[in-house]
């Protein structure tokens, strides 16, 4: 198996992009990544597209086939990869395996989603199609509903408080304000969303105990990376970023079948696999992008991947350990909470942000100093299919 590197990364601004189709967004992100890679006269052999809902939301299938044609990459192989909100992570995995095996030399992976074309209700229902079709969906469960129940249990078991959740929201929205690609660029304030009696309007209850600012926005957006062998990458201009480790694990479809619903086993296993492959441990990570679709998930995942002991993640947020300059900066991009969450695009966007961190090319207000290793966790379903990547800076 060959070592695989990321040689190009690109992203478009997330948000509400009325003027763009999904194909437009995937194309823009792809062109940015291809430009960034500087392949010269070489071309990609295969394209993997991470997308969850084009078939449901826009009544269009086979999006990867459309993309290769739009980008004039014919006759490159093309596949659409669907794994719920972890579609992006799974698409990168497919690209990784294809290059590592030696079957393809250059692969484009792009993830994206167009969700703002429908109302928030329909978008929530669309995301809920990943729940169990007999045991969950017919009873009206939504992902915010699941996250609310999970949060309540986590609070009871591990002492997480609303103040901790609020601290995650404030931290990530502050970083989103510095990220030109972020959907939400507005900094929020503890008084306005928590302390003041006026917070009852500003930050209304969404799914008890989660409030509006505990949840990520529904976004349009896309991100892309170009992969090749590390050996080939070393001949290019930009410093390659090695995919040092990858892991993926699954868990029961329904939450109630889990022995302990607060135990995100697939997160733990996926991260462990990625660390083992990379021969690194959590303390070696300089920066992480965790899947904070809900504020509680950033705290829970930070514990499950091994940054903190169970029950310590929330305290770490309050102590500033997860902010830029802290012990382990988490979601410096703003995370899903502020960069946004176009479901099929998130896993790729996380990797793009870590690539930029490891290349040391972000402005100093967003750059983790001397970042060497990064971790991403892309959380599919409600933790029933999770991908994790450990990326490493390669000095030229």
């Amino acid at each position: 198996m060959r070592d695989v590197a990321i040689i190009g990364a690109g992203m478009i601004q997330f948000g509400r992009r009325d003027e763009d189709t999904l194909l437009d967004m995937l194309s823009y992100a792809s062109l940015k990544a291809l430009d960034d890679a500087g392949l010269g006269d070489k071309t990609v052999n295969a394209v993997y597209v991470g997308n969850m809902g084009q078939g449901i939301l826009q009544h269009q299938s086979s999006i990867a086939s459309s993309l290769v044609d739009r980008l004039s990459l014919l006759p490159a192989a093309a596949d659409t990869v669907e794994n719920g909100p972890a579609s992006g992570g799974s698409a990168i995995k497919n690209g990784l395996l294809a290059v590592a095996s030696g079957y393809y030399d250059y692969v484009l992976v792009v993830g994206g989603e167009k969700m703002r074309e429908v109302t928030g209700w329909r978008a929530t229902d669309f995301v809920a199609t990943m729940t169990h079709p007999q045991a969950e969906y017919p009873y009206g469960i939504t992902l915010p509903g699941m996250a609310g129940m999970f949060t309540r249990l986590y609070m009871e078991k591990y002492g997480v408080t609303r103040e901790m959740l609020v601290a995650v929201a404030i931290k990530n929205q502050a970083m989103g304000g510095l990220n030109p690609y972020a959907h939400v660029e507005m900094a929020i304030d503890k008084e306005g969303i928590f302390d003041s009696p006026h917070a009852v309007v500003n930050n209304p209850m969404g799914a008890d105990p989660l409030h509006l600012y505990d949840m990520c926005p529904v976004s349009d957006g896309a991100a892309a990376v170009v992969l090749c062998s590390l050996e080939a990458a070393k001949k290019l201009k930009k410093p390659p970023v090695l995919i040092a480790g990858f892991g993926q694990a699954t868990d029961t479809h329904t939450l109630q079948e889990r022995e302990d619903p607060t135990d995100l086993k697939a997160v733990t296993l996926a991260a462990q696999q990625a660390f083992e492959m990379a021969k690194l441990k959590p303390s070696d990570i300089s920066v992480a992008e965790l899947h904070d679709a809900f504020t509680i998930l950033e705290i829970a995942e930070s514990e499950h991947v091994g940054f903190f002991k169970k029950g310590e993640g929330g305290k770490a947020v309050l102590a500033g350990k997860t902010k830029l300059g802290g012990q382990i900066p988490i979601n410096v991009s703003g995370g899903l909470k502020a960069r946004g969450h176009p479901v099929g695009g998130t896993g790729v966007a996380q990797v793009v942000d870590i690539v930029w961190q490891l290349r040391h090319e972000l402005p100093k207000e967003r750059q983790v100093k001397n970042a060497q290793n990064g971790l991403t966790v892309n959380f599919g379903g409600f933790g029933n299919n999770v991908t994790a990547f450990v990326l490493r800076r390669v000095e030229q």
Partner: protein
Amino acid sequence: MPFDMELEAVLRPTQYPMPPYPPKVVTLANGKKMVIRQAEREDVPEILKSVHPCLFIERDYYNIVSARLYGELLAWYYYRAKSPYCLIGQVDGYLVGAVNGRMENEKVGMSYHTLAIDRGLRIGSHLFAAKMEYHLEYLGQEEVLIVAESPIGFRRWMIEYPLEPTTIPHELGGGDSYRLTREIYEKAKPRLVVGDRPVPPDLWEINTREILFADEKAIQEKIAGLKGR
């Protein structure tokens, strides 16, 4: 513009006595303080400067809402509306939103429009709530008639309160009419109507010295910008 006072007397409707809306201050999600106060008729030309750029924004039906608001404010300015009012929201002196309506009669209020110029801060929710507060608590009316012209308005008013459907037609025409009764208002009040009174003197001074306006481009970017919060 020349006018005949005798004819004006015919064209100008008689007005119901309207006690003023007592100003209040609301802390927004970003920590900034929004003062909500009643605009004076003389403020209309200045307010229109912020409404004008919204006439050309299709997103979320800003064009319909702002065109209608523009006309309603002109009608007030030229004494062509019966018992109208306009409440404005200001942050650091800048106009961030406006709501308006009028008294249909002593017992029934007619809600017109809600325009949030700065978005993503629930300014529209706060201003709409202030409008309902004005009708029910200060004008002493029993109900307010409301119609939605945008999906956001429908979600915010009809569902969030929730309002009651009524067969009484709203004067804006359009879709089904709804009403806010005193009972619905009292139930919704704890979670939707907030604000502190009196407004601290420093905030009052900043926000009444002059109504400040972002330039047209900034307003259009805030409302229809790519990021579209």
